[in-house]
Structure formats: C-alpha cells, structure tokens
C-alpha cells in the first residue's frame, strides 16, 4: 500500500508594458500631435492543486493486481488589469506611467474556478495474457450550475494477448497478436468560469451608479460527455516484427456538445451563451502498418502507411436552435438531424450568363420579381453568376428567411484520409519522406468571391484569376465579371465550392552522418551530421484555393471553409550537428 499526497502552488505574475513613441502612427494618434501612449498590464494567475493517491499492488502466482484511488482539487484564479496614459514629456526617459498627462484607457478582468475529482482505477492481468482495467471518476466543476456540477465517467478495458497463448507460443512468424476492447465515458468542460451564471455590469443614470444584465444564466449547462467504444487488433509478423500494424474500429457518441449560442436580439443580451447543443456520433475505422522491407546492417528501407475513415452523424438535435445555427453562426453550413457534420448549404449555380438572350429568357420567367435579385433595381446582365431556381417559381429567392432555393451542396468530410511514410538509409545516408492525403471532401474557398467584387470600402489586391474574368471579349469564361459591390458574391453558393482532395508531401529529410573514422581524425570532433529538409514540399490537388488542409477552431464548421489569404509557406532547412 502506498499513499502519496502532493500539494502544488503556482503563482504567475506577468507585467506587460506597451509604449508607443510619439513618432509612430499610434503613439501620435494618427499624427494629430499626441505625445506617445503607454499601456501597462499586470496579470496574476494562481493555481493551487492538491492531489492524493492511495495505491495498492498485489501479485498472487499468475494473478497481478493493482488499484489506485485518488482525489484532486484544483483552484485556479486569474486577475488582470490594464491602465493607459497618453502624452509623455519625452519618448526615452520620462515614460513612467505616472508621467503621462492624460488618462486614456482601463480594462481588467477577474475569474476563478474550482475543479474537484475523485477516482478509482483497477488493473488486473493473468499471466500476461488477459488484461482488465476498470476505472471510475467523478468530476465536479464550478463552471456548471449547482445541479449539474458533477459528472461521473466510468471506463472498462479488456485485452487478450493471443500470441501469449501456448498454442501460438514460439511461432517465429507471429511476434504479436493482441485484441483490445474498451468502453468508456469522458467529460469535457470547455466553458468559461462563469458560463452558467446570470451576470450584470455597471452603468450609470442620474449621475448615480446603476447596473444592467450582461450575461444570460443557464442552470441547465452541464458536462459534455463522450461515450467511446474501441476494438483493436495489434499484430507483429515475421522475425523481429518486420511487419507491425493495428486495425481498429471505434464508435464515439458525444452528447450535450458545448457550443456558443447567439441569442435572439430580443432577449436583450448581446453576448453569446454557452449551451449544450446536439449529440454527435462518430464512427470509423483506422488501419496502420509499418514494414521494414530491407533490414540489413547497411541498407534499411521502411515503409509506413495509415488510412482512416470517419463517419459522423448528428443524432439529437434540439430543433429549437436549429435555424440560428444554419443561418447566423455558420451561414454556409447546415446541421441536420441524422446527417453528417459539415454539410454545405446554399444556392446552386449553373455557370455564367453568357449572353443577353440567356438573361432575358430567365427574366421572363416571373413577372413580379427579377430572376435573381432582392429588389427590382438588381439587374442581371451577361457575365453574372447564374443561380438555379430550385423551387420552380421563376425566381431565385434571396430573402433572409427563405430556404426555397437553398439546398445541401456537399460535405466537407472526406471519404477517407491518411498518411504514408518512407525511410531509407544506406551507408550513413538517410532519407525520410512523409505525406498525407484526403479524398472526397469539398471546401469553400472564402476569398474567391472577393476576386470579382470591387469594393469601395475595403479594396484589396486580387489574384490572377481576376484576369480570367468574364468580359465581352472573353465571353466564355468560367469566372463571373467584375462588379462594384457585387451583391451576388455575398450569397453562398456552390460556385465557391471545390473538391479539396489532395495528396501532399509534407516533409522530406535527408541526412548524412560522416563516418566516424573520418571525423575522428580531427581529434576533437566525435560525430558530424549534415542534414537538409523541406517542409510543405508539394501538394497534388485540383483545389484552387490557398490551403486544402484548412481547419477552423469552430468545432462545427471544421474543415468547411478556407479563410486563408496567403499560400502555406514552404521552408527549407540546412543543418549540421557536431558533437565534441
């Protein structure tokens, strides 16, 4: 029996000083004569953590048993304060905060959270062949309302080392064969310290202090939990495990997924609220394999390969929040009950209007409305993108709430994805190459619409595809014409959707170790390695945007939209490692 307790205390004090001299644009308030500006920030964070575990291990012949029980208590707090003054006597010496003549800025925040958990874990194995692990933990976080503070998360795992059985022992072609199965629940608390509380902020009236609501309370806010089933087979084949690999399948069900929700303006609260939204189900299959094709002393050749396929499904959508998600937070994607995440939603297009006759034909379809426009002033002309009227009423309805001409346009989830690696070494040279691929996913190139839109408010540089735009002289272009404040480019359509399948050589690394015999002649160098590497070597893809791999931190948007402006950088490194 072993009892272990640990208390740790972290105190972190950060001071920031941001002085902008009077010679700079910001320091002079846009060259209006301001004499420098200074903001000083102090941030203090504290973390107190108490962890105690009680462990016990016992071996009885072939029965191996150990257990751990424990608890942790964590208290985190953070306080931050910024003060700014403007107009200093000079830019070099007299720049103390108190030497600024005019108060300019204040800001600050204070937050704290408590997390408390206790857990029990049991491990058992019989003769190195049968394994059992069981655990249960209970977590409590002050970030949730009283009734939903606790989450209980059990897990069970079993493994059978088949290669350890007598009937397979000493088979030289089989070095490893193991089946693993597990089930478990995990919790996630990605929510602000006071995400569930109704909060107020100060204001004034009658020159007296007053306060008004700032944040919606949400007593129903609770742990997001993920239930996960795994089944895997590990194998090692041939002498010295020349071939190793794993084949696994999994099922993950996330329920009460935490998501920032935009309240209706009529609630009278202007900040987002965190809510437990839908349930997401992910299932998939993963396979990876490594082979040492050549395994000599001088020459080695290793090849690795992995591929996976994941299918996600929204299973428990709260209808009430549906429309806000489809139209506001993510205007381009729709979340539909029973469907995968990352569905694009918008208008279908059918190329470019190439002639006035074509425009006239469409305009004649509906007597009351223009074919594609909000008001009668929105005229369509040759060179415009041609939207498709799905409802068949002779017009493309761009009204805010109207879904009649919108449809699911595709999915940003790949059919499968994976990676390959290759490693060759020969006589001190070694070369490794890594690549990744993804197949069958679509991506919206955010910047494409802007290439054909002349904005008077935010003009920007354009890419060369703007040169290929529709013009009367180039009437067969697949790109639309250039327009000032082009409204049509603001309606999300499949025009900007592209197949984003790719194969990418991520990096390449070449290394040469100069033989020790040569190096040692110098008398003082022990080894010398010279290396050359390239990152982002080359991407094979038909996707026209800057980054086929783009991924958003927004969990529901995921890989749907490519917001990148610049292409990914390619880096080259040359290096030498010398040891003495």
């Amino acid at each position: 029996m072993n009892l272990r307790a640990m208390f740790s205390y972290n105190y972190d004090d950060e001071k920031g000083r941001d002085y902008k001299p009077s010679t700079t644009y910001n320091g002079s308030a846009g060259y209006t004569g301001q004499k420098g500006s200074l903001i000083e920030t102090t941030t203090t964070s504290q973390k107190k953590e108490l962890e105690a575990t009680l462990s016990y291990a016992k071996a009885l012949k072939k029965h191996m048993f150990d257990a751990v029980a424990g608890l942790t208590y964590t208290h985190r707090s953070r306080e931050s304060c910024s003060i700014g003054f403007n107009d200093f006597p000079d830019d070099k010496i007299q720049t103390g905060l108190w030497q600024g003549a005019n108060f300019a800025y204040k800001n600050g925040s204070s937050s704290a959270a408590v997390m408390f958990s206790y857990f029990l874990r049991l491990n058992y194995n019989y003769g190195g062949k049968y394994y059992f692990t069981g655990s249960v933990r209970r977590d409590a976080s002050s970030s949730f309302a009283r009734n939903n503070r606790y989450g209980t998360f059990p897990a069970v795992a079993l493994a059978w080392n088949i290669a350890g059985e007598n009937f397979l022992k000493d088979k030289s072609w089989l070095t490893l064969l193991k089946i693993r199965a597990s089930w478990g629940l995990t919790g996630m608390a990605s929510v602000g310290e006071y995400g569930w509380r109704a909060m107020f902020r100060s204001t004034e009236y009658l020159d007296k202090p007053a306060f008004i609501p700032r944040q919606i309370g949400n007593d129903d806010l609770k742990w997001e939990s993920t239930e996960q089933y795994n089944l895997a087979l590990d194998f090692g084949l041939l002498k010295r495990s020349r071939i190793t690999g794993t084949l696994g399948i999994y099922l993950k069900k996330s329920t009460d997924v935490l998501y920032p929700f935009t309240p209706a303006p009529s609630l009278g609260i202007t900040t987002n609220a965190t809510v437990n939204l839908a349930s997401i189900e992910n299932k998939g299959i993963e396979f990876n394999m490594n082979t040492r094709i050549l395994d000599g002393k001088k020459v080695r050749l290793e090849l690795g390969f992995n591929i996976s396929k994941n299918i996600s499904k929204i299973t428990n959508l709260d209808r009430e929040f549906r429309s806000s998600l489809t139209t506001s937070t993510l205007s381009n994607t729709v979340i539909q009950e029973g469907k995968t995440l990352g569905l694009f939603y918008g208008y279908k297009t059918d190329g470019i209007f190439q002639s006035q006759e074509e425009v006239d034909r469409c305009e004649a379809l509906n007597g009351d409305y223009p074919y594609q426009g909000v008001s009668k002033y929105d005229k369509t002309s040759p060179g415009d993108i041609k939207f498709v009227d799905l409802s068949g009423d002779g017009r493309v309805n761009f009204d805010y709430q109207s879904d009649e001409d919108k449809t699911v346009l595709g999915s940003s989830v790949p059919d499968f994805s994976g990676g390959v690696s290759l490693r060759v070494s020969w006589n001190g040279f070694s070369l490794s190459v890594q690549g990744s691929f993804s197949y069958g996913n679509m991506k919206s190139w955010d910047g494409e619409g802007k290439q054909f839109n002349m904005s008077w408010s935010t003009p920007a540089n354009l890419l060369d595809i703007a040169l290929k735009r529709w013009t009367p002289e180039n009437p067969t272009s697949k790109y639309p014409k250039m327009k000032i404040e082009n409204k049509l480019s603001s309606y999300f359509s499949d025009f900007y959707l592209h197949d984003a399948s790719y194969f990418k050589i991520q990096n390449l690394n070449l290394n040469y170790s100069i033989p020790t015999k040569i190096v040692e002649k110098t008398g003082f160098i022990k080894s010398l390695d010279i290396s050359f590497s390239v990152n982002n070597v080359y991407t094979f893809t038909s996707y026209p945007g800057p980054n086929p791999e783009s991924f958003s931190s927004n969990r529901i948007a995921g890989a749907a939209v490519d917001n990148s402006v610049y292409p990914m950088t390619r880096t080259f490194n040359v290096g030498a490692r010398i040891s003495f």
Partner: protein
Amino acid sequence: MKYSFMKIVIIILAVYLCCSCDSLFENELPKHDLTAENAIVDEASSETALLGVYSFLGERVFDSYYIADNAVRSGLVSWTSGTYAESLTLLRLAADGLEVRDKWSYAYQMINAANNVIYYVDKLSDSKFRDNRKKEIIAEARFMRAFGHMFLLKYFAYFWDVNSPYGVLIRTEPASLAVNAKARMSMRDSYNQIIEDLDYAIENGPDYTTCFQASKGAAMAFKANLLMIRGEGEDYANAAKLAQEVIDHGGFQLEETFTDVFAKDYNSKEVIFSRFLSSTVYKQADNKSESVKRMFGGIIDYTAYIYMGSGLNKDERFSQTLQNILYEAASKDQKQWVWSKIWREDGNCPVFYMRLAQMYLIKAEGLARSGAPVKDVIEELNVLRRRSGNTELTEAECDTEDKLMTAIYKEILCEVCCENDSEWFTVIRFKSTKSGGRKLADFNINYQDDAMLAFPIPMGELQNNPNMEDNPKI
C-alpha cells in the same frame, strides 16, 4: 500497517474534502462582478438596478432619433443628408441597417433590464423595503417595460390595425435560453399586455416628484396616449377621461406661457417624463448625438417646416421655439441653423417623452372623436392657445367636422412637434381632407400602402428567433 502522522492528516483532509465539496463551490462567486445571487438583494440594490433600466434612455435611439425619426417619416421635417434619413423619407428601411438594429436591440435590452428588476425584486421579502417602495419599484420597472414595448410598437408593429397579427414581440421574463424562440403577439394582445403594465403602474407607482423617473401620473398619461393610438370602441372617450385625470391629479402643472416650458426645461412641472442626460455626455455634447445638440445644430434643415407652409408659421409658437436661429458654432464663418425648441448651448438639450400640454390635446381629440360638443373640444385647445399668445378658436371656426379635426391637428403640430412622435401618429390617424385617405399622403409622397408604416424586423432577430415572423414586404 504503520500510519505516520502525516498520512493520517492527509486522510482526514481527503475525507473532509469529499464531504464538503459543495461548500467549496459556493465560494466561487466572481470576485468583482455582480451575479444573480448578489446583485438585487435589498432596497438599495433594487434602486440601483432600477436606475439601470432608466439608463437605456441615454442611448441615442431614445434621444435624438426618438424626436426626429418620425417627424422625418411624416414628411413634416426634412433631414439634409444621409442614407438613413433618405430611407426614412422613402419609408423603406433595410432590415440589416444599423439604426433599425439599434432600435430593436436597445429597446429589448431595456425591457430585459426591467424584467430582471421585476423578477428579482418580487422575490425579496417585503420587510427589506420601506413602506410601499417594493411595489413602487416594480411599478416603475413595469412602466419602463411598457415604455420599451410602446417604442417597438411604434416602429415595428401594425399599431394602426388592432386586428392585425403583426403585433409586438412581448418579453415579460428575464432573458433565458428557454424563451429564446418566441413569437410576436397579435396587435390586440400587444395592446392589452402594455396596458396591463401601465395599469399596474397607475395602481402602484409612486407619486410624481421628478420627470426622470416614472410616476402614477406618467403611467396614466402614456395610457391615454396609447388609447388614442389604438382608437377602438370606447378608447377615445376613455383617453379623454384619463387625460382629465392627469390634469387634475397627476401632480403636474401647466406653465403659464409656452416659452416658460422651454426656459425651465427639466425643472418645469409640466414635464411628465423625460430622460436624464448624464453630465459626462453633455460635457462632450458637440460630439455626441445623444445630446441632441449636435443633431439639430446643423443636421435638421431650416427649410424643414414643410408643414408650416399652410399658415402654421403664423402661430406664435413658431417664432417662440421653432423658428431657426443662427448659432455661431466655432466662428462667425461657421454659423449653423438651430432649432431653439430643442437646442441648448450647454448641450443639455431637452427630450420630453410627455408633457402635460399633450393631455389637453388628447382630451380635445378624444372628446371630438366620441361626439362631445364642439364648445368642449375647443375649450381644451384654447387653454394651450391662450397661454402661447394665440387668438382663441371660436365655435364658428369649427362648425364642420373637417374644420374641427383640422384645428385639432394643427394644434398638435404646433404644440408638440418633434417631441414624442405625436405628428407621426397624427398623420396616420387623421384623414386627408383632399383624398380621404391617411393625411400622411399629403406630406410624404412616398407613402403608398400601410406596409410602409412599419420597419422590417431586424435580420438578426429572424435568424436567431425561429418563431419570429417578419412584417409583410413592401
């Protein structure tokens, strides 16, 4: 097994932690922020929260825009420039426009603040309050909730048709996710809900002491005004009765002369309800549209008095408060036309949401519309005409219905124009002597059908409130 002293201490500590974990969490209140638990706990904090509700009156949608928007929509005043001013005149507003969004957003922020006061104050025990103060605070908050809903009714609802389904989206609970999706009420239910709040304020509100906070009298006055806007069945007669009650028992007092009202401004006992302009705002009045000063110090054109064309500029009140004067803004070269009614050099420009004079106008019109003798009607109007130095109306001058209604209508424009949108409701309620349709058509040629009288529901609301229905498209 051996237990050292330390081990025992740790075990005790662990057991203690397990047992007392709930109390660990209760202490995790934000250190420097008010929350539901500690914000509204006694009379003093209830008063502070109540001031929070009133604080929204300092936003520009309840200031300069409040007095100007509908005068422009009426076609009675023209704004010199700007897309928003133009769309007001055209009676076509964009659902994603900043001004449309702001009106909606600030009105609902005010309503939510009121709902929080009503909800949390109601939960406190009576013993925490002096006398009747608990009920008074709730009454004031309910008045402000009604004020917010009336503001929304004016811009976003079909107030002219009590049978319309396009009423107000009424919010009567503190904001919570459970009520996020909510449908608008019918116009009839909207009126009833607002009147219910006003009735509570009439019953329980405090007596009048200041125009910066609601009183019983203010609630009566706003109810009388709302009944005139609804105009169904006994509404006109009841409005006239209520107006008389405000005159008799509201605690307000008519100033001796018209100019006195604007000389005394907020100190006038004629002012029923107004907003307080914080000293920090009016110190920077030249840069803040909230102060009204900047808005009228140049933005409203002096040629604006389209409605003065029909002889109204002969009214004494025109020269007393409406005629433009030239104000030297920065230098003699930068003179600006200003409107002396609302313009104050120190920036503390008055915005009167309601003053007693309007009760005489409501009474006169209410009587006229419920079949009272002409003599009684013009007596009310003459109260205001006398004190502003105008000749009194005679029965002979108002011997037909048309003439009487025109007299009332002109009186409303001269007395309370650019104060609280009376001109807007007036040009919608009164019939044109030329066409027989709404008088609005006489002034604003862009008016074609009633759908143009309501703003579109802001885009954000339609996107985030699945139960909300937009107004019919123009």
